């Protein structure tokens, strides 16, 4: 069946609804609306589209917070020989969206950024973004290794864990990140099974299901 035929199937159902309602004097407002309103995004409910639009029109982080997020994201995922940095992949913009989408991130992120600035201020008398790379890294080193971190740094560890997860989520789900990680699927193809050289590499030539 081609696309037009399936559209016809919709038309058909809408039409029969109208027929069914012929006895009733009121116009079948809903059916008429349903057929003209098919301009909705295919496969998404109207409320989902509206929710996305609303979230995109709102701003959560301040300029200063976004700047701090950008520095941190690039510390977590810097540019290397294979791919660009977190900010090259617009990870901060993703984080701005996701905290609006998942409000449970908002307080820990906002509070964590504040925690970081206070730490930095107590040590170097400036906010994190204005600290030197060396100063920034000295703090990050104390919160990036959960098992080794001092108990008094625990709040920072929790924040950094979250920041690291969001950065990885944001980076590896972009074209740049997918290419970097080497996911080569999502194309129509055949599946001939594990390549022979790989079977050999793992000594799996004789394993059959």
């Amino acid at each position, binding site marked *: *069946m081609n696309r037009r035929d399936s559209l016809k199937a919709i038309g058909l159902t809408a039409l029969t609804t109208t027929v*069914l309602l012929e006895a009733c004097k009121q116009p079948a407002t809903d059916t008429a609306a349903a057929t003209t309103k098919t301009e909705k995004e295919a496969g998404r409910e109207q409320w989902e589209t509206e929710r996305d639009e609303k979230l995109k029109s709102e701003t959560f982080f301040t300029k200063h917070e976004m700047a701090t997020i950008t520095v941190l994201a690039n510390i977590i995922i810097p540019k290397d020989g294979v791919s660009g940095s977190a900010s090259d992949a617009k990870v901060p913009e993703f984080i701005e969206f*996701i905290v609006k989408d998942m409000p449970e991130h908002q307080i820990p992120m906002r509070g964590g950024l504040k925690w970081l600035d206070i730490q930095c201020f107590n040590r170097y008398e400036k906010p994190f973004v204005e600290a030197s790379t060396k100063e920034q890294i000295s703090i990050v080193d104390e919160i*990036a290794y959960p098992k080794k971190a001092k108990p008094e740094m625990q709040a920072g560890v929790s924040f950094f864990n979250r920041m690291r997860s969001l950065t990885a989520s944001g980076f590896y789900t972009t074209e740049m990140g997918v290419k970097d990680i080497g996911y080569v*699927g999502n194309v129509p193809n055949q*599946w001939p099974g594990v390549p022979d050289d790989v079977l050999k590499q793992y000594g799996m030539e004789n*394993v059959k299901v």
Partner: protein
Amino acid sequence: MSDFQIKKSSTVYDAIIVGSGAGGGMAAYVLANAGQKVLMLEAGQYFDPRIDAQQMKWPWESPRRGAGTTRPFGDFDASYGGWQLDGEPYTTKDKTEFEWFRSRMLGGRTNHWGRISLRMGPIDFKPTDGLTDPWPITYADVKPFYDKVDRMIGIYGTAEGIENEPDGIFMKPPKPRLNELFIKKGAEKAGVRVITGRGAVMTEEIKGNKDRAPCFYCGQCGRSCKVYGDFSSSSCLVIPAVNTGNLTVITDAMVREVITDKDGTAKGVSYVNRKDLQEYQVNAKLVILGASACESARILLNSKSSQHPNGLANNSGVVGKYLHDSTGASVSGFLPQLLDRKRYNEDGVGSVHIYSPWWLDNKKLDFPRGYHIEYGGGMRMPSYGFGGGVSTMNGMVPDRNGKMKEAGGYGASLKDDYRRFYGTGVGMAGRGTAIAREDNYCEIDPNVVDRFGIPVLRFHYKWAKEEILQAKHMQETFLSIMKEMDAVVTSKIEGPETNYGLEAPGKIIHEVGTIRMGDDPKKSALNKYCQAHDCKNLFVVDAGPFVQQGDKNATWTILALAMRTAEYILAEKKKQNI
């Protein structure tokens, strides 16, 4: 004059079908193709996988990168619905933790189901353990319908000759992925049989079917398939049935109740349009419920009349009772052998490539029946949550230089770890027999209505000792498989304090049994053809009629029984019995 008005149609259909999922879709398909004039009422919106599937989208095409914020199984999942529906609550009592997944769309939950398609076996229909109830029908009664469903819809698998895991008419199966070969090897060492999966994915053409094209291995069945390569009720049953010219579908039509005549026979249903909240009443010679096990029970319990004071088809009082969902528990981790693995496309099909049918003799165990195991892992498309475990796992195994390093990190070395660990994941989940018990039930909550004014369901469900012991056995088995394949376990080790990781009832989304069939009208709602004992022109075609689920996922049996019921209806009509 008041605005309130119920619009009544004068048309009398041969049949009204409520719900367009596996059961409703199959009944509609069989009846429409036999020339019956059928009206289908579906509470959800229109959905056609060819147009609406989010298949082949990249993670960056979703602002939340595929996260499950508005759809529990991810932004691309083909589900309009979830664990909670706005304005349509359900309640629980006695500290029950029942979870109910509903989809409101043409095709219901078959648009995004896992396509794992297992037949129930001879022992599942006639168990001998003394604890679980036998069905009034045998495997031999249902086999011809399983066969027809296989041929009509398409299923891959391999013939194995296992008594209680009956073979079907199989298309060629997908080959195992690399992590699945590790599983096969490890499980075998642990004494667990692993065989080729069985899934409702068309890996070969079906002769004469021009609407569907074979699978092209994108691994995304959960998003539904634009070429109709897998089974969804929308693509494979309802839309083809509409094309016969005999089926009329009204979407956004939420059925309130079945309306009966003075003599107690069903004469139609009333429904409310979910969009404009207008009320309607439609008539037919018979009514077929396929709204899903719990929704159909809800409709029956809400269909009270002087003839049916307990609700329709409920003289026995069993409607809502014997609710059961499969048991489920899981373990996950990674395979250090696969660190730095070679990249290639292993998307495969979107259903299971391998699984373990129940392999033990229960006589030596402390629980009846058993469970099967479904496996996962591999180089999947990244989405929200990607790499989440890497900052823990990188402290669990030596690095490339053979040195242990501190878990966590950042920068170039962490970036390298993301690459290193990609595709090493492995996981397994058990799906087991839960016991159908009278005191696990859904009922009408006397105090709560939904936004349409329809009284809602209230659940009462407690796991029994046997189900908890089964979960314990699952955990032990999974850990021994993980050990034999030299995998590192990263999930929490579950003990007695969490019932060994036994999921809350409902969580596995195989809820069945609420309108059970039986030969004795005092103890069952339906006869063995899913026809109401107390109302001869009322039928149920979803998982409501299940007497006792095996460890097998429910859908293939829903399809076979719905086909059987539809053919029975046609035969009875010929004999003018209904």
